[in-house]
């Protein structure tokens, strides 16, 4: 992938990620999140991870976002009214986030491998579904089945939580 495409998608992802937090209207936040996830999916593709890029679009931009928009519609949430900002909490929150960012950047700066470019691949990775599937059903068979139980428990839990109380 040419470098300028990386920068375009990285900037797109970060700007719309910031828009999620800055928008007052939850619908605008959800739609910004979709664009941010599409940019992130392009970044995955630029790293030759085609399977991960595609399930990012299918699961996040598809299923999870529909769930968010559906709940916003169901509860009929309006844009929040401006309330008094708690300046102490706001400064504290931004301060902790900025300190974390500086700390990660310092660690990356001291990390020698971070200055190297990515090594060449011997062949194309368009068969990565096969490779990931083979690992999933051999080395990671037990975690795979546990995740299946987790999804089942989540489904039952959601149905239980969202049913109406019997009168």
């Amino acid at each position, binding site marked *: 992938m040419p470098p300028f495409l990386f920068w375009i998608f990285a900037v797109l992802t970060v700007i719309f990620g910031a828009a999620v937090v800055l928008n007052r209207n939850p619908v605008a936040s*959800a739609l910004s999140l979709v664009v941010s996830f599409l940019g992130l999916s392009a970044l995955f593709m630029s790293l030759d991870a085609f399977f991960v890029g595609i399930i990012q679009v299918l699961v996040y931009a598809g299923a999870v976002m529909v769930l968010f928009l559906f709940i916003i519609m169901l509860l009929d949430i309006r844009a929040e009214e401006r*309330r008094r900002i708690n300046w102490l909490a706001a400064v504290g929150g931004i301060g902790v986030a900025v300190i974390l*960012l500086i700390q990660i950047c310092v660690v990356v700066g001291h990390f020698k491998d971070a200055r190297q470019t990515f090594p*060449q691949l011997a062949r194309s990775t368009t068969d*990565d579904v096969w490779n990931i599937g083979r690992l999933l059903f051999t080395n990671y068979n037990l975690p795979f089945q546990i995740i299946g139980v987790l999804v089942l428990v*989540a489904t039952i839990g959601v149905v239980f939580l969202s049913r109406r109380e019997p009168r």
Partner: protein
Amino acid sequence: MITLGDYLVVSAILFTIGLAGVMLRRNLIVILMSLELMLNAANLSLVAFSRFRVEANGVPDYNAQVFVFFVITVAAAEVAVGLALLVALYRARQTTDVGDITSLKF
């Protein structure tokens, strides 16, 4: 050329945005969206390390991508349960603002 560090910095910025969103916003739905941003930032650095660590036969290290698959599955389950809790809370209290939920406040 694009280095590993560039991807790690983009991932760090995304994680920071998500963390700031969780701490600054008071709407529970936006807090859940910020959680998703943080999980995806972690996924980005996992995939970057997977591509960086090329194995002997010249393909990326797929262990990290299997891990990303698990993270995405858990994140989807987490969103479903979180939104169901939100709906239950809205039925009981008619609010999605964390500032209005003070029963456990000391």
